[in-house]
């Protein structure tokens, strides 16, 4: 069974942490993963940096720019990930925009993910229908999970479609807006969480975008299976460096 599915079977209040590969330093990838594993996070998302990350807010954008400047490439990432499974057992997801993956070769990308021990993919600009038509069978053949996003604006009908096609979890975008840390949930967000809960989807849910502290994490966990933190962690990395990862995670977990 895929590590992602396993994790959701066994745990609740999942904390998934996102970081951009190649940031702050080019070869921090495994170091960060080790730190996160040591801090007992439940899942990790590795961001493949892209020149034009249009779904991301300024913090992740800048980390991507830096990572590319540092020299990060898809090939290099897979090289770095060679030792991955000797250092951690938690599920690892790669999040990347579609264009770099296409240029790398979709099949080759999947194969290398599989070889590296990656469990799933998030490709925010790969639409559901095109995925279904052209890529789903490949992804599933390689035993990878593909996760899709839903937002407060996504219709119930569409959520059902996404639920059907997703494997692993559904990435529940918490709000209108791109990635970025926020302090609190608004009323419309809570209502949205409620609505989704009532839909009783087949996939578990992780709330992402705007989770930054224990308060928002707790609130997310009350409304789903856990949460994804990106910008807040990137900011922490930038301010305090890789080695202080545990300080950050400790403050989040309750």
């Amino acid at each position: 069974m895929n590590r992602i599915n396993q994790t959701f079977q066994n745990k609740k209040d999942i904390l998934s942490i996102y970081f951009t590969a190649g940031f702050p330093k080019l070869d921090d990838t495994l170091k960060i993963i080790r730190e996160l594993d040591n801090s007992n996070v439940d899942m990790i998302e590795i961001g493949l940096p892209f020149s034009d990350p249009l779904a991301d807010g300024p913090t992740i954008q800048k980390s991507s720019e830096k990572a590319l400047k540092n020299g990060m490439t898809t090939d290099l990432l897979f090289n770095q990930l060679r030792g991955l499974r000797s250092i951690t057992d938690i599920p690892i997801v790669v999040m990347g925009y579609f264009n770099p993956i296409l240029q790398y070769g979709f099949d080759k990308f999947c194969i290398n993910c599989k070889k590296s021990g990656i469990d799933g993919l998030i490709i925010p600009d790969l639409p559901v229908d095109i995925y279904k038509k052209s890529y789903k069978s490949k992804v599933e053949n390689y035993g990878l999970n593909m996760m899709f996003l839903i937002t407060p604006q996504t219709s119930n009908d569409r959520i059902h479609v996404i639920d059907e096609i997703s494997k692993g979890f559904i990435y529940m975008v918490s709000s209108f807006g791109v990635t970025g840390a926020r302090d609190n949930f608004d009323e419309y967000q809570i209502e949205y969480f409620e609505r989704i809960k009532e839909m009783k989807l087949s996939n578990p849910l992780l709330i992402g975008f705007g989770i930054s502290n224990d308060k928002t994490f707790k609130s997310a966990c009350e409304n789903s299976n856990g949460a994804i933190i990106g910008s807040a962690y990137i900011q922490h990395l930038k301010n305090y460096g890789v080695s202080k990862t545990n300080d950050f995670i400790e403050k989040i977990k309750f």
Partner: protein
Amino acid sequence: MENFNISKDGFYGDFGGAFIPEMLHPNIEELQKNYIKISESSEFIKEFNQLLKDYVGRPTPLYFAKRLSKKFNTKIYLKREDLCHTGAHKINNTIGQILLAKKLGKKRIIAETGAGQHGVATATVCALMGVECIIYMGEIDITRQAPNVARMKMLGAKVRPAKSGSKTLKDATNEAIRDWISNPIDTHYIIGSVVGPHPYPDMVARYQSVIGYETKKQLIKVEKTEKPTHVIACVGGGSNAAGLFYPFLNDKDVKIICVEAAGKGVNTGESAATSILGTEGIIHGSKTLLMQTNDGQITEPYSISAGLDYPGIGPMHANLFRTKRGEFVSIDDNDAMKWGLLLSQMEGIIPAIETAHAFAVLEKMKFSKSDIVIFNCSGRGDKDLDTYINYFKL
């Protein structure tokens, strides 16, 4: 018959589609579902045509360039989009989209801009309709296109700098998309060219197609045929070209010529000749040809003209290139500047530098005496005066 128009699912051959994050899905779906219905409603058509006539100043003339025709021993006509209100074809599209946005109940308009022409055209229609307007523009472009920034501000728009990446058009587009993701309900995003996710390429092409349809009507009066032998336009994103080509796409008697900016030369590393230098990929939600690294990172193009300085081309043009329906020519900075001056001194029309690229084809291709060659004179050169002054030491 081969069809060079858009397919039902939003593709031109291999190119097009809507490769968008889920956050944009409702907006894009709303547009996909409504743009044809609304654009073809008699109410919309009436308002659109009336504004094009009374506000934009359409029909723009089809001007027979006497001296140029004589010099090149062929029949050269200029479709005078430079005479449109705000100085370029860009406003045809913004008029269409603002009407669409109103019908969809939108209260807030965002747009990206490079040279500032599309920003000005957007700010203009927003002032006309009394709608809030936010324009994203690369921080570098804000400095180099100061007059257009001032125009947008005069028109009441807020100009927000894009500070990421190369701080130019591509990044301004990213910022606009981010804004839209954050404001999905009340906001319409007016894209300025035939790029972006479906339905933008087709929607913008339709609003610009007035250029081509007028040309047909005007041509029959002077040449007793609706068919030119050649239609020629510069291609940045491709909207002025798409507008002129539109009625001729499926008529192979009419040769389609797309002129790209070679910058300092196609192989200098400072170029914007996307069809030659680009490969298939995804940019701003659309599968098309674009300039990128082997690794799929989008690269920054270069051209002396800010409006051709985009790393992609619209999916319609990518398909024209791949199918060889269109002939692609690239013109470097020096030839473009030379032709800016030449058109000024031979016909009294100072073209935008973008537009000047198109005319340089006259020295790259042979035309015969009986050819009817239509150039899209997409914009006027006022915005480029500083560049001309510096280049020619005027």
